[in-house]
């Protein structure tokens, strides 16, 4: 399977409690662009966006279940190609 570079995106609620999560996503996805819209942050990157539990935990200073991502997300463009205990990946498949 060849990887595609089409844009994927995640929209996250612009809230204080989501800041460590957004910082973690920024740290793990250097190409990420962030657009501010009223009430939400629009995160976009070419090809894929990765969220690592360990990076989020080190930003938060506490344990974090990948399921908690459900409390932050507003919308997305792409496909959840992985969602397990350690990692969430949004990408296009073909």
């Amino acid at each position, binding site marked *: 399977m060849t990887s595609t570079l*089409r844009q994927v995106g995640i929209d996250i609620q612009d809230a204080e409690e989501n800041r460590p999560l957004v910082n973690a996503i920024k740290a793990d996805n250097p190409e990420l662009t962030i657009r501010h819209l009223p009430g939400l942050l629009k995160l976009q990157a070419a090809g894929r966006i990765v969220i690592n539990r360990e990076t989020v935990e080190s930003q938060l200073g506490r344990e974090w279940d990948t399921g908690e991502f459900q409390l932050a*997300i507003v919308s997305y463009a792409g*496909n959840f190609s992985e969602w397990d205990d350690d990692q969430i990946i949004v990408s*296009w498949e073909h």
Partner: protein
Amino acid sequence: MTQAKPRAKKLPLKERYALLTRDLDWEPSYVEREKLFPYTSYEGIKIHDWDGWQDPFRLTVDAYYKYQAEKDKRLYAVLDSFAQSQGHLGLADASYLNAIKLFIQGVTPLEYAAHRHFAYLARYLEGPAPRFAALCQSVDELRHCQTQIHTISNYNKYYGGFHSWSKMHDRVWYLSVPKSLFDDAMTAGPFEFLISISFSFEYLLTNLLFVPFMSGASFNGDMPTMSFGFSAQSDESRHMTLGLEAIKFLLEQDEGNVPIIQAWIDKWFWRAYRMSALVAGMMDYMLPKPVMSWKEAFELYFEDQMLGGLFPDLEYYGITPPRHVEDAIAEKDHLSHQVYKILHNFSFAAAFTTQTPSEEHSAWLSEQYPGSYDELYKPVWDKHARTEAAGGRIFFQGLPQLCQVCQVPMAFTEPDDPTAISFRTSEFTGETFHTCSNGCKWIFDREPEKFVQAWLPVHQIYQGNCGGPSVPEVLDWYGIQDGDNGEYKGSPDQRSWAEWHSGAPKQES
């Protein structure tokens, strides 16, 4: 940096999900499978292995309730603080509430309808994974309906027009647009429903339908609506996933499914897109502080994310972009203006008020629509403004012709000529039926037996089924009270706004 404590031992997510979802399923022993699941064969869709359905969220009952409870807790904290701090005083303007009235009349009842239909899918889909995903969505939709009513009820204490929205949804002309779309989906088979609501509505167009409402709420001082919106949207991400999973699953199961799915995408893209015309009018004209134009949202959420991102992915399965998508792109400079003109002309019979855009608002529209606004739409608004300055107000006298499919009044223009009304006809059993666009005509011609049964509000008035022949009788039957409708300037809401914002103390009655 704080060191995270060693994690408590528990089963990995994948195993937990497999145990709690699939392993709780069983093969029927004393009832034939076809009797247990009677609705999954007549649409022509072939499924060879229901276990091919993957839920990327890997949601289990315990996790579902844990996160949903947390979402509600956060939402209700916002609602409480808004009520306690007289948050209604922070609204940009009372005219903003017209957008919220359109929402509770047009969208909230759809949440309830979705709740009902996903409960049906949770019973009748054959695989345990899609059944469980449908069950979660059914509970979500009920939560959305309830939290929307609860949130919006806050404004009912201070402003008018929030009564009777459920009755209105069943009766009022512009609300037959969303209602008939959902009725169309619910009367289709379970697989078409998945492509209509889960894929076309939730995945393709949900961002265009919901995110603008919520960003608009945030920008116009409506914290509670923004909060319920984003709380609902977090569920929506799961629903989008269900939609995408459904389409990939159906396409992977059998090559014979591909043309069936393509035809449903062609139909439902246009159906959902036509309904979103109401959102286009709301975004560009009903928000005192507009956030983003319809055109920009369409380009960002539909052209970039869906045509640019999703459809190349689906091409792998032999799926092409929706039929008539070029017509939608061609009218992005016109849609919102044409729809709001309809609402403005007929708001004497609507359960919200309208107004001619202010000079400032008009300047914003001109900036957003350099290719169309100044030439085609501003002159009309300028004429309204002159009439109103002389003490008048133009309403259209008479009833409009409606499109047999989308039920929007026939006021859209040709994709290649914004000065000519797009007017299509089809013959069926000796009668002529009218549609507003190539898309709606194609949909009618594909299923004329279904669409001749449409409950068209204008026809129903003429047939004597809507309370009587005069406007006051019809409005009474709609549940519209004097002052809910018409012009915003001088309306009860505008007077209430002035009173709440004049320094004089006012008692809550």
